[in-house]
């Protein structure tokens, strides 16, 4: 939005009293302002609809037909852009009017009879605020543009970079497989190196894309009931060959035959893959790597322990940073991308878990991560009325969900972040942090942003408020009282969608 400098010099006045209007106009014109004077709220409202309307307005509170506060209400309801800064004019001593005007959306006020110096000072404040608003809006627009550009670039890069890689890989593989004729030893050797590097580049691109998706909060976690025991057995088998090549003893330590969990199995596989690849890289020949899962009261403790070179204390805090590779081990095995641990951290946290490492230089390193012990999707019910929470719980009892409860907004946010439930049934009207406040906070947090929310409230829902928090498209609304079947249906549909 290109705003000319003189734009900040333009002021709209709405005042039905002729003398007062004249005084205002004269005082402002004298100071170099370009004044557009109107004598009624309706007239002012009309003038403010124009594309190049002044962004500064001084509105009298008391006017026939449409008063100043009404104009402000209309303005704010329409959320006009660019912003209109409004100074409300009131008679001296009407403190309640001032409070009401400010509540309705006025930015400032001035009491009559006014002092020209004060008028000028307040209008100057308005000018600065309008400038700030405009700068902010410019930046917001630019950020949105850049974000869209980044997403588009990622998707394009993903395609454009991989197409030539696919051709290179295909061609080299054909040669190596002898399809294009016999190769001598040197040729075979050179092409093997080429293929290894093509694979490395492919991994690098994949990791970069994964990383940017995690950073942009665009990773979707698709949870299902899965078994950590089955998963780790699969991974153990998959890495057996690479471990044997390096004469590393790869062990699997499970605390039970079945370790059910409600998680995204592909993403969990990726976490283990990254941790084990890392361990293989930093463990010298003849070493040992143990992967396993321990059980605690309400969570699993997964670990990958190696007998590798270890990490010095001063490098510990850099461990999960991007592109950091601490120490190098010569020998076979592929190079890392420097993103594996960062991605693992992002994915674990998306599941509501924690990841950390302990290490002793020369002895080895153990990576741990936690995963909530749960084999069914959990639903968080939020309502300040305990009886309502019980009713909803009863309604959902047929759905085989793990029920979490919160009795106020603050508690709801805390539980949502710690447990990352599969969905939330939310009341709107609660003391202190209300439903809208909860939504706003959850949407701002990467961990909780994607949790579907069903609003269950007898209050009318304000779609504008939801839109503000980018929540308009994700929240079906139901009004109390609700039928059990309807609620269950909505909840299971939303969880399925995930």
């Amino acid at each position, binding site marked *: 939005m290109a705003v000319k400098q003189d734009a900040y010099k333009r002021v709209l006045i709405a005042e039905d009293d002729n003398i007062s209007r004249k005084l205002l106009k004269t005082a402002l014109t004298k100071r170099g302002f370009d004044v557009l004077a109107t004598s009624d709220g309706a007239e002012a409202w009309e003038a403010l609809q124009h594309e190049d309307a002044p962004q500064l307005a001084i509105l009298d509170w008391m006017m026939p037909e449409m008063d100043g506060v009404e104009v402000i209400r209309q303005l704010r309801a329409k959320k006009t852009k660019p912003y209109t800064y409004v100074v409300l004019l009131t008679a001296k001593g009407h403190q309640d009017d001032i409070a009401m005007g400010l509540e309705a959306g006025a930015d400032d006020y001035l009491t009559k009879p006014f002092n020209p110096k004060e008028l000028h000072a307040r209008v100057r404040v308005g000018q600065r605020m309008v400038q700030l608003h405009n700068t902010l809006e410019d930046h917001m627009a630019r950020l949105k543009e850049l974000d869209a550009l980044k997403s588009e670039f990622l998707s394009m890069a993903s395609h454009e970079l*991989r*197409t030539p890689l696919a051709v290179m890989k*295909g061609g080299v593989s054909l040669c190596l497989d002898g*399809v294009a004729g016999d190769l001598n030893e040197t040729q075979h050797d050179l092409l093997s190196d080429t293929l290894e590097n093509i694979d490395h580049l492919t991994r690098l691109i994949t990791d970069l894309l994964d990383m940017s998706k995690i950073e942009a909060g665009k990773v979707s976690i698709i949870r299902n009931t899965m078994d950590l025991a089955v998963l780790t057995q699969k991974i153990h088998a998959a890495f057996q060959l690479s471990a044997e090549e390096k004469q590393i003893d790869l062990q699997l330590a499970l605390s039970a035959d079945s370790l059910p969990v409600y998680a995204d199995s592909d993403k969990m596989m990726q976490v283990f893959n990254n941790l084990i690849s890392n361990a293989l890289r930093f463990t010298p020949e003849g070493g040992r790597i143990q992967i396993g899962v321990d059980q605690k009261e309400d969570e699993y403790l997964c670990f990958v322990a190696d007998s590798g070179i270890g990490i010095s204390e001063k490098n510990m805090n850099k461990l999960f940073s991007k592109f950091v590779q601490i120490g190098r081990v010569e020998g076979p095995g592929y190079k890392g991308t420097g993103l594996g641990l960062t991605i693992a951290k992002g994915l674990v946290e998306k599941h509501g878990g924690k990841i950390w490492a302990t290490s002793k230089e020369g002895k080895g390193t153990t990576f741990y991560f936690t995963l909530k012990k749960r084999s069914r999707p959990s639903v968080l019910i939020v309502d300040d009325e305990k009886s309502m929470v019980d009713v909803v719980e009863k309604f959902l009892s047929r759905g085989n969900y793990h029920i979490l409860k919160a009795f106020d907004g603050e508690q709801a946010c805390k539980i949502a972040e710690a447990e990352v439930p599969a969905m939330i049934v939310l009341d709107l009207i609660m003391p202190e942090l209300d439903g809208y406040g909860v939504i706003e906070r959850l949407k701002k947090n990467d961990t909780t942003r994607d949790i579907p929310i069903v609003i269950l409230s007898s209050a009318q829902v304000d779609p504008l408020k939801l839109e503000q928090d980018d929540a308009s498209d994700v929240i079906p609304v139901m009004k109390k009282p609700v039928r059990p079947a309807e609620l269950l249906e909505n909840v299971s549909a939303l969880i399925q969608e995930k």
Partner: protein
Amino acid sequence: MGNKILVIEDNAAFRKILNIRLKSAGYETIMAEDGLSGLTMARKEAPDLVITDLMLPGIDGHKISRMLKFDQRYQHIPVIMLTSRDLEEDAEIAKQCRADAFIVKTTKAQIILDVIERLLAQAQARAVPLELTE
């Protein structure tokens, strides 16, 4: 073996690679370089399996798969969708248009060949009861 595979791919180099790879695995191949001729060939030449790129100019892989899979005359032909991206959106697209498999182009050749073999075996197994009733 000896099954006929139709390859629809606009990238000449990748088309060549697929052609050599499939022939060396004992398949008969027919090649199309754009969606329209690919679709025509799929209908006329009765291939045993179709491999199509997802991103093609004009009629794309998504459309080709839909046109075949929602048509009773051709829905028995297995369709493999190839893409250079491994975005979740692409996997979703492939599912929607009922492609039988979705493979990223940088996947090892042997894995692609295994998928082809499996899909052909499945298609043949499905065809058996029909022959018995004749």
